[in-house]
C-alpha cells in the first residue's frame, strides 16, 4: 500500500514538474514571485574576479529580489568534491573546466537541465558546440545536459605587429595557402615568420599542446577531437600524428622560427612574442591565447600597434574552429529560484557588467558586442559569437598524467629532438592511466 501511495505521489510530483516546465522560471522571477529567496553558488573566482561576478548578478537581484550568495575558493577543486560527496552541494556550481563536472555527472549528482529549464530558449542562444560540450553521460550512460556555459575565453589566435605588418605590405592570410605564401614572403624579406617559445618552467611544453589542439580542429572532425580527449583516439593515430606533423613542419623548417628549432624549448612563452615589437621586428607572427597581451611591451595600442586573426582553415570540411576555455555552470539543487537563476545565466545579460569591466567573453548568442569596452575583447567576442564550431582546450580535459604531464613532456622532447614523433606519441599513449 505504502509503495503504491509513494508511486502515486511520485507520479503526481512529476506531472507537477512537467507542468511547471511549460512556464519559464525566469518569467516568474521577473514578476517578483520569488522575492526574498536565496541561491547559493560556489566557484573558483576570488579577489577581483569575485567582485566582478558579484557586480554582474546585482542586476538580477534588483529585478527579481533573489539573492545570489557566491562563495569563491582558491582550493575550489578540493572543497567542491567534499561538499558534493557530503550531500551538502551549493545550488549552482561554477566549474572552470568541464572535466571535474563530468565526474559528478557520472556519479548522478547533477540535475539534467533538459528537465529543469526552458531548453528551447537555451538552444536558441548557444551554437551547437557549446551545447555539445555541456552534454555529458550520466550514471546510466544516457547523456544529460549537465551545464551551461556562462563565460568564455579564446585560446589560440595569431598575433601580429599591425603597424609594421601594414608597412611591409603583408596581408592577413585567410587560407592556409595564403599563410604559407606569407611565410615564404617574410623569409624572402630576410626575417623569421614565427616567434615561438614553449619554455614555462616545470610546465614547459603546454604551448605546443595548444598548437596540437588547433591543428587537430583543422585537420580532422570534431568527433575525432572528442574521441582524442576521451582517450579512445590514440596519440599514435594518423589523425593526431598529422596534426602534430603539421605544426612541426612549420616549426622545424629552417628559417621559419626566430632563433631556430633549438631555441623553442629554451624561450619562455612570455618572452617569445616580444621580438615582434622590436624595431625592426625580428619575427612577425605569434600564436597564443588572449592573455598574452599582458606580456607585450607597455604602451601598445590594440588595433593600432597589434592585431590578431584566427589561424586559417586547412581543409574546408573542418573549417577553423576556435579553441576556447571557459566556465560551465551546473545545477545541484532544484528550487524555483535556482531554476530562475540558471535560466538567467543562459542569457548574455547575466554577464553584461563583467563584459563591460573586461576580462570575460560571452558565449551566448544574444550578446551585444557594443558592451565590450576594449578592442581585443570586442573582436574576440565577435569571433566567438560568429563561430561555427569550437572546442575546449583538450589538454585541460585529459587526465592530469597526460594533459599536464606526458603531453607537455612528449611535445618538448619532440621539439628538442631527444625523441622522434613516433617515440613521443607512443610514450604519451603509454602514460594514459590504465594503459599498460
Amino acid at each position: 500500500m505504502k509503495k503504491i501511495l509513494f508511486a502515486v505521489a511520485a507520479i503526481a510530483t512529476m506531472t507537477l514538474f512537467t507542468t511547471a516546465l511549460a512556464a519559464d522560471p525566469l518569467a516568474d522571477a521577473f514578476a517578483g514571485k520569488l522575492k526574498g529567496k536565496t541561491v547559493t553558488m560556489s566557484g573558483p573566482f576570488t579577489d577581483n574576479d569575485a567582485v566582478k561576478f558579484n557586480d554582474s548578478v546585482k542586476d538580477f537581484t534588483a529585478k527579481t529580489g533573489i539573492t545570489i550568495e557566491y562563495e569563491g575558493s582558491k582550493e575550489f577543486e578540493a572543497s567542491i568534491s567534499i561538499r558534493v560527496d557530503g550531500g551538502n552541494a551549493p545550488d549552482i556550481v561554477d566549474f572552470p573546466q568541464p572535466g571535474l563536472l563530468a565526474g559528478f555527472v557520472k556519479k548522478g549528482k547533477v540535475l539534467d537541465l533538459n528537465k529543469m529549464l526552458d531548453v528551447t530558449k537555451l538552444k536558441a542562444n548557444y551554437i551547437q558546440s557549446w551545447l555539445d560540450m555541456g552534454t555529458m553521460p550520466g550514471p546510466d550512460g544516457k547523456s544529460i545536459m549537465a551545464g551551461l556555459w556562462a563565460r568564455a575565453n579564446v585560446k589560440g589566435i595569431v598575433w601580429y605587429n599591425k603597424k609594421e605588418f601594414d608597412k611591409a605590405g603583408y596581408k592577413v592570410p585567410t587560407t592556409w595557402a595564403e599563410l604559407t605564401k606569407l611565410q615564404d614572403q617574410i623569409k624572402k624579406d630576410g626575417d623569421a615568420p614565427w616567434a615561438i617559445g614553449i619554455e614555462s618552467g616545470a610546465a614547459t611544453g603546454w604551448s605546443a599542446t595548444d598548437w596540437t589542439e588547433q591543428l587537430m580542429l583543422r585537420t580532422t572532425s570534431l568527433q575525432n577531437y572528442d574521441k582524442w580527449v576521451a582517450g579512445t583516439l590514440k596519440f599514435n593515430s594518423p589523425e593526431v600524428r598529422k596534426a602534430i606533423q603539421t605544426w612541426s613542419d612549420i616549426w622545424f623548417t629552417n628559417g621559419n622560427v626566430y632563433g631556430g628549432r633549438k631555441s623553442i624549448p629554451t624561450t619562455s612563452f612570455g618572452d617569445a612574442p616580444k621580438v615582434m615589437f622590436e624595431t625592426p621586428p625580428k619575427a612577425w607572427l605569434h600564436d597564443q591565447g588572449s592573455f598574452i597581451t599582458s606580456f607585450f611591451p607597455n604602451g601598445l595600442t590594440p588595433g593600432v600597434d597589434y592585431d590578431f586573426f584566427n589561424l586559417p582553415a586547412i581543409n574546408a570540411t573542418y573549417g577553423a574552429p576556435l579553441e576556447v576555455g571557459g566556465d560551465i555552470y551546473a545545477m545541484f539543487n532544484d528550487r524555483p529560484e535556482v531554476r530562475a537563476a540558471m535560466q538567467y545565466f543562459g542569457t548574455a545579460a547575466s554577464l553584461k557588467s563583467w563584459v563591460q569591466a573586461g576580462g570575460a567573453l560571452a558565449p551566448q548568442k544574444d550578446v551585444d558586442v557594443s558592451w565590450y569596452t576594449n578592442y581585443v575583447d570586442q573582436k574576440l567576442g565577435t569571433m566567438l559569437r560568429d563561430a561555427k564550431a569550437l572546442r575546449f582546450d583538450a589538454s585541460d580535459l585529459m587526465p592530469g598524467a597526460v594533459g599536464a604531464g606526458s603531453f607537455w613532456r612528449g611535445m618538448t622532447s619532440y621539439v628538442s629532438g631527444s625523441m622522434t614523433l613516433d617515440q613521443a606519441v607512443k610514450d604519451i599513449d603509454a602514460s594514459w592511466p590504465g594503459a599498460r
Partner: protein
Amino acid sequence: MSSFPMAAPEKAGIKYLKLSLLFVAAVVVLAGGFVFLKEYKDSKLLLILFAVVWGVGSTILLYTVLNAVAETFPRKVRTWVLPLVFAGPALVLLVWFLVLPTVRTLGLSFFDETSTKFVGLDNYFYAFTNPTMLESFGNNLLWLFFGTAGTVVLGLLIAVLADRSPWEAGFKALIFLPMAISFVGAGVIWKFIYAYKGEGIADIGLLNAVVVAFGGTSQAWLQLPIWNNFLLIVIMIWLQTGYAMVILSSAIKNIPEEHLEAARIDGASEFQIFFRIIIPSILGSIITVTTTIVIFSLKLFDIVRVMTGGNFGTNVVANQFYVEQFTFGSTGHASAIAIVLLVAIVPVLIYNLRQFAERKAFA
C-alpha cells in the same frame, strides 16, 4: 616528633595545589595562545612578536611545569619519568610528523590514485617499469656517482692545497660561499650561465660566451642529451664542495704534525704522505662526508625542477614523485616512488649515523 608527620601532608598539600594551579595556568597559556594566533588578524607585527614570545615562552613553561610535576614523584619513578618528560614532546612530534606519514605513505602505496581501491604491488611494478622512472633511476645513479665523487674529491683537494697556502682562510671562504645559496637560487644563477637564445641571436649565457670566444658555436646546453645531466651535477658540486672541504680540512688539521714529519724524515714523497698518511688518518671523515652527499644526491629535486623541470632526459626520482603527486594527483604512484626512495636512502642513512656516532659527533 609528633608534629612532623602532621605538617608534611599539609605542606605537600600546598605544593600539590601550587603545582596543579601551575599546570592549569600552563594549559591556559598554551591553548589561549593558540586560539589567539588563530583568531587575531589586525596587526601582523604584533602577531609575529606574540608568536615568537609565546612559542619560546610556552616551551619553557611546558618543560618547567612537567619537570616540577616529575620532581614530586618518588625517586624510583622519577628516574624513568624524567627522560620521558624531556624527550616525550619531541618523540610525539617525531611520531606524528615523520613516523605516521611514513606508515601512511607505505599504506597508500598499495592503493590506486583515489586511495580507495587496493591494487597490491601495481604501483611498485609501475615504479620499476615506467620508462620515465627508469630514466630517472639512471640519472640518479649519475648524480650518485659523479656528484658525490666530484664533491668529495674536489673538497679534499682544496682542503689539502689550502692547508699549505698563506691565504687559506680567503680561499676557503670563497669555496664555502655557495653553501649559503639555496638550491633554487643556484638554479636561477646557473640558468643564466647555461642560457641559450637561438641561432643568430646575441647570447647572454656565460658558458656560450666562453665557447664562442674560443671559436666554437653556441649550444642549447640544457638540451644536450647526457651532457645536460653533467651540467646539472656541476651545480651540486659547486654548492656542496664547501661542505666537504670544511669537514675534511678540520680532519686534516687534526693529524699530528709528528706523523708527517716522521714520514718526511724517512724520505716519503708528498704523494706518499698524502695517500699513505693523510687519507688513512681522515678516512672516517671522508666516509661521513661521502654518505651525506650520497643522501643529498639520492633525494635531489630542486636543481632539476628549476633548471629543466625534468625535461630533455634529466628527470630524477624525487621530481617524478613530486609530479605524480601534485600534478597528476596519482597518490598511489607517488607513494610507491617515495617508499622506493626511502628504502634506497635508509641503509646509507644508518651507515652515516654510525659514522657520526663513532666520531662522537653527538657526544
